[in-house]
């Protein structure tokens, strides 16, 4: 009897949960509302079967519960009933399958006039490539990938010269234009998924896959990697920003092409030396850092990393958070560097500095720290030497007090939470794997030992 009541309550409760639950699909932002319709049809049919079968079962258990005075009915088969049930089930299945196949036919045939763009995945970042003015994506190959050619562009292919290369986790798309997204991976499987667009597809190294959609409202939408791709899988995020045409054009005009990237002048350390004088007053003339001034060591940090941080300070992506006391001091300093050339000159100069490794100021259990570092090492390298390909700076030799403050800032979202700090997001998530001060100290003790 208890069982009968529970079964009825479960059926009623399930239906109620379905209708009351605030957890449901995020509002759609693409042309694929037919997918939502197919889901609705499936819900009606399966919901009916779920309720009917279980309520019938509950009634049966009630009606035919054990009684010493009754005997079960003997009925091995009922051909007619079985055929009817089979036929009705087949009709229900067909009613769900048919719209599904129609929509799928649409999905596998992108419109002829769709814009073509490319999404490139790697552990654990996104980047994007647009075909440029000629409308043709240049050819690429994994064998061409290197520090100066992160997209693996074919150096002999003229079609690639005007390709727009977006080395950031943020992609912009124009509103209401169908887009065919080609998907390519440099290393392992990834999956390009934007829940608001409803569609997703794996990125597979060695082949190019695709999906298509038409963005139907403006906004900023999360890109999530949805195919397990290693330790930092859950930090592989990005954004699709859907813009009105004018905003999109403005964004596009700021992006560098492959030929721009090749033409970028290398920094000049001699000119950088003069500019560095100001920096040196806090960071030390040898870039050794100064704890009293809260200025971290710069020597040994890779040029690309310093360049990005100065750029972030200038744009208010870093050092703009209220509680980032020391970052706020740095922001006006960064503004003294007028342009990219000046930044490159300074970083080129910093690259020539050679200071002693920082002094340790924090003690902890280095063996436990080594276990924590296991996660960090996936990007920052086994020796904490950093890895340009993963946008992970060198940690070895850095001031421990500075690293500790930054880990705290990341954990609290003082650093890395800005929407445009696409690499900082990863550190926000990662810093949270260290639960207390002891864990941080242990980790830093280990880094000091490297």
């Amino acid at each position, binding site marked *: 009897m208890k069982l009968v009541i*529970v*079964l009825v309550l*479960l059926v009623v409760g*399930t239906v109620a949960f379905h209708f009351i639950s605030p*957890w*449901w*699909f*995020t509002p759609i932002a693409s042309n694929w509302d037919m997918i939502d319709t197919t889901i609705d049809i*499936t819900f009606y*049919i*399966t919901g009916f079967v*779920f309720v009917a*079968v*279980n309520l019938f*079962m509950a009634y*049966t*258990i009630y009606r*035919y519960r054990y009684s010493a005075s*009754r005997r079960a*009915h*003997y009925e*091995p088969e*009922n051909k007619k009933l*079985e055929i009817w049930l089979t036929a009705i*089930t*087949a009709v229900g*299945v067909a009613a769900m*399958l048919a719209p*599904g*196949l129609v929509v*799928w036919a649409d*999905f*596998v045939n992108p419109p002829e006039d769709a814009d073509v763009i490319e999404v490139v995945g*790697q*552990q654990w970042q996104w980047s994007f490539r647009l075909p440029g003015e000629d409308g043709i994506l240049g050819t690429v*190959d*994994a064998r061409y990938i290197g520090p100066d050619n992160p997209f693996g562009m074919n150096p002999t292919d003229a079609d690639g010269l005007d390709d727009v290369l977006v080395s950031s986790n943020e992609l912009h798309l124009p509103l209401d234009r169908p887009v065919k997204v080609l*998907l390519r991976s440099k*290393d392992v*499987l990834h999956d390009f998924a934007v829940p608001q667009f*409803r569609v997703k597809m794996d*990125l*597979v190294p*060695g*082949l190019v896959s695709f999906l298509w959609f038409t963005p139907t409202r403006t906004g900023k*939408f*999360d890109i999530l990697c949805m*195919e*397990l791709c*290693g*330790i*930092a*899988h*859950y930090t592989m*995020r990005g954004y699709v920003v859907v813009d009105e045409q004018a905003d999109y054009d403005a964004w596009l005009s700021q992006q560098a092409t492959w030929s721009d990237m090749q033409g970028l002048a290398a920094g000049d350390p001699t000119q950088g030396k003069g500019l560095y004088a100001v920096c040196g007053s806090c960071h030390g003339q040898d870039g050794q850092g100064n704890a009293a001034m809260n200025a971290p060591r710069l020597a040994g940090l890779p040029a690309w990393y310093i360049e990005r941080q100065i750029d972030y300070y200038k744009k208010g992506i870093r050092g703009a958070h209220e509680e980032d006391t020391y970052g706020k001091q740095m922001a006006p300093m960064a503004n003294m560097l007028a342009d990219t050339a000046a930044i490159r000159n300074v970083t080129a100069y910093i690259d020539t500095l050679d200071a002693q490794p920082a002094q340790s100021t924090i003690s902890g259990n280095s063996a436990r720290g080594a276990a924590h570092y296991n*996660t960090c090492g*996936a990007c920052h390298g086994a020796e904490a030497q950093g890895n340009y390909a*993963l946008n992970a700076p060198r940690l070895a030799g850095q001031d421990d007090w500075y690293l500790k403050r930054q880990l705290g800032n990341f954990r609290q979202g003082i650093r890395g939470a800005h929407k445009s700090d696409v690499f900082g*997001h990863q550190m926000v998530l990662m810093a949270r794997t260290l*639960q207390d001060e002891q864990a941080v100290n242990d980790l830093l003790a280990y880094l000091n030992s490297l």
Partner: protein
Amino acid sequence: MEHVAIADQIDELHDPDTFITKYIWSQDHKVIAIQYGLTAIFVGLVALALSGLMRLQLGFPDTFDFIDPSSYLQFVTMHGMIMVIYLLTALLLGGFGNYLIPLMIGARDMVFPYLNMLSYWTYLLAVIVLLASFFVPGGPTGAGWTLYPPQAILAGTPGYDWGIILMLASLAIFIVAFTMGGLNYVTTVLQARTRGMTLMRMPLTIWGIFTATVLGLLAFPALLVSAIMMMLDKLLGTSFFMPAIVSLGETLDHSGGSPVLFQHLFWFFGHPEVYIVALPAFGMVSDVLATHARKNIFGYRMMVWAIVAIGGLSFVVWAHHMYVSAMNPAFGFFFATTTLIIAIPTAIKVYNWVLTLWRGNIHLTVPMLFAIGFIFTFTHGGLTGLFLGNVVIDLPLSDTYFVVAHFHMVMGVSPVMVLFAAIYHWYPLMTGKMLHTGLGKIHFWFTFLGTYAIYLPMHYLGFLGVPRRYFAMGSTDFIPESAQSLNASITVSALIVGASQLIFIFNIFWSLRNGEKAGHNPWQATSLEWQTPNVPPKHGNWGPTLPQVHRWAYDYSVPGVEADFIPQNVSTDEVAATADETPGAQI
């Protein structure tokens, strides 16, 4: 030893006379079954503990220092692989298959007892190699239970160095063990049935186990070759699954391989694997339902053909796991169609279980509670399969918690409900003691309601778009804060369900000593395993003479007969002669 499984003379059986030959190096299918069962339950408890750890992280992120992204992925991977292969497959086929096949078809043992013994010890070796991976540098693999290359064997994935090698080796050893057992089960069913036991008189349990074993023999080789090929890629630098790759900034030597090829091989095994687990469960639950409802299984022939049809279809649906894998998208049409077609025989099974209850005389015993619980959870899990099988609906839901919730309902909770039903049902035969009913009912309610409290809300995380295999969700624009409270409540339910299994473990051991004596055929069942001269059955099962079968396994409440069941080995003449005797009297 030849033909001993189907011979009337037992002098050729060589009864074991030492402790070692009786309980350790035993060739008796019943002892081997229990060895298989206990080992499987032990690793199952390890996997249950791993799921608890994983749920702690998901329910309460940023809380536990000892769970980092690597160990989280290792918990996920090992939990999945152990549950699917080393618990469910081993317990259903190695455990129940071994125990029930000879008894239900009226044989003295498996036709190859020595091979049967080797099968268990090889399985144990596979388990040891698997568990050893917890103790090697870098720990077990964290590649996900699907072990997809390239990431499974590349830096950036936990256990890419040692763990994955031990995992692949363990799988290969397991498959050897399964093949030895499987050939044995198939041959025994085909060759060692007793007089009168035609195929269409076999209980559905045997049909389910037999068909599942055939599936296993055809499907596991695909996993074996893919494990060997991945091992070669890892150790010898071949490129079966490895295209040109720049891994963490470093260009590798591989070129030309296909990661998608692995997925085809894996799922060519992986989908039938679902039915390798499900079909024995379908069979066993049918017999539990019929016995405790005192009614014949409804539509027996349809049920047999449904098992066979599902088994056949299960080989042409594998790529529904790969709709978003970047395989040729045109495959979607074919695989969506075959997948939804498989729903028809599956639905027939559900209807027939419910119609078996209809006009029955339902005893709500503990096995029956679990069997009814199974119908509920399986209906739920089967219906959500219609979402994922329909290729376009898979686009938003694939790789989200909807998938996790679906497959746990359909091949986690449901087979486990049947396993519990089966253990409560057949424990009296195996031990001669009844399990404690009160404890059994508490165990049922915690398990049934608790698992639903875990998995029903989890589907809705999937609708939200929460991805599976995420160490932490962090913040997104589209997932509300409240999703975290849902995750926390799922974790609490999971921990309660996990802890409540201790009641079951306690019951198993407590009843062994203190349980009520079961006596002969306590459920008054018709099938042969309950008609042995001794309880528990002795070596050789049947005494001097093998039983003679006169009828199908479902003669319950036959009109005109006093007793409400007629065992399979009772002839029509005997029914007439004993019509006045007490039901259940030994004939």
